[in-house]
């Protein structure tokens, strides 16, 4: 609990880190209608694709400096030596980032889709889908940033975006399933299954990767 509070306060102080990705998401979603003719049916065609890509980009930005500052000032190394479970510290860090960035983005996704589609169930289902996908993306980009810790976030994004693409495929399929009301809960459970594996595996792998960097 103490660690949770500490990580929360640390991130809260760095307003660029948590506000930046939210604003980028917002701007992408505002920019989208400007690129198409303002006919509601035309707007809805590509809306969800833009929504998921905006979520992906925002999460990529969110994870950009998750370890960098701690790595540069040596506190990451100290924590690794002191803490018995380094992986749990990483999962706390990721959780806080998701809480401050992923949740607001999910709320914004719901609001934007509510304003775009006439299908209420669809805009309602966007919220849980966005919550799950943002957590998955964040974990993946954290993994990427751990790999390219002091080599810039581009390399990290390059190696992890391919892993996020199957999630995008499932998200696209789930939107179609909701639109046609065909057993869309299966897709949500599939994403939840992926998330439950990722939540456990990624912090563990990331802790080993950071150890490799510090050795």
């Amino acid at each position, binding site marked *: 609990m103490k660690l949770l509070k500490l990580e929360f306060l640390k991130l809260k102080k760095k307003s660029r880190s948590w506000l930046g990705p939210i604003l980028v998401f917002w701007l992408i979603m505002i920019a989208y209608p400007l690129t198409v003719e303002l006919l509601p049916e035309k707007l809805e065609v590509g809306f969800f694709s833009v929504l998921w890509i905006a979520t992906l980009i925002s999460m990529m930005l969110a994870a950009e400096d998750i370890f960098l500052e701690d790595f540069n000032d040596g506190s990451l190394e100290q924590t690794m030596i002191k803490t018995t479970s380094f992986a749990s510290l990483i999962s706390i860090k990721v959780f806080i980032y998701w809480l401050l960035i992923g949740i607001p983005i999910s709320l914004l996704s719901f609001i934007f889709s509510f304003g775009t589609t006439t299908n209420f169930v669809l805009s309602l289902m966007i919220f849980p889908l966005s919550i799950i996908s943002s957590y998955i993306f964040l974990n993946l980009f954290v993994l990427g940033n751990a790999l390219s810790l002091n080599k810039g976030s581009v390399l990290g994004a390059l190696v992890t975006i391919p*892993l996020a693409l199957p999630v995008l495929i499932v998200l696209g399929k789930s939107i179609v399933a909701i639109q046609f009301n065909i057993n869309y809960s299966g897709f949500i459970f599939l994403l939840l299954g992926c998330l439950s594996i990722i939540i456990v595996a990624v912090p563990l792998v990331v802790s080993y990767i950071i150890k490799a*960097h510090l050795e």
Partner: protein
Amino acid sequence: MIKKFIHQFASPKTYLFQVNKFYNYIFYISISIYVLSITWGLLFVPEDFVQGNSFRIIYLHVPASFLSQSLYAAMAIASVTYLIWRVKLAAYLIIAIAPIGAMVTFIALSSGSIWGIPTWGTWWQWDARITSTLILFIMYLGLISLHGSFSNYEKADKLLSWLVIVGFVNIPIIKKSVDWWSTLHQSASITLTNKPSIDPSMLYPLIGSTIGFFGLIICLVIISSKVQIIKRESTKSWIKDYV
């Protein structure tokens, strides 16, 4: 016991001298099988009832697709071996396989595209199998760029191994994509459990070309791994004698 066995038989020096003994045999047998199978497939196998002569590209496309996934699986095994037993040779093999894997995946994608024009009427389709194979291709490129961005080889090897293991998740997705999603790409004609749905006259040259292609790729992996060993062990006295 396992550790002792691995360390004894997987030292770069032993590997380098051992593969030299077998390389010529593997190369000549593989090239003979491949040339024979390709000739058989291209000239003597009857035309396909629906696809005509365009189906003959399977003698390149199928082996390349099979190898693109198999090479990644080999990299994943090497990664586990490196991370658990710290076998240097495994690390050399991972980075030796990666560019070959990328090349083979590119062959699979491009031959699939060429085949797509007469059969599907399009050279590209965003379907699950093709997209997941494209993801595999990007993964290979990502692995190469990750390894290349670190000057400390040991660190690069460790990070690469972790990424290979995480990225392995894409392999079952590629394999099962045709079953999990309704795709334009056909499902597997040859499985371990069922009788092949392909006619024997087309099947035998296909098996031959796959074996031949597999052997040729092994030869490429051997050459690439030898380059890696020479590069990485250049300070050792035995490598100077070898070179």
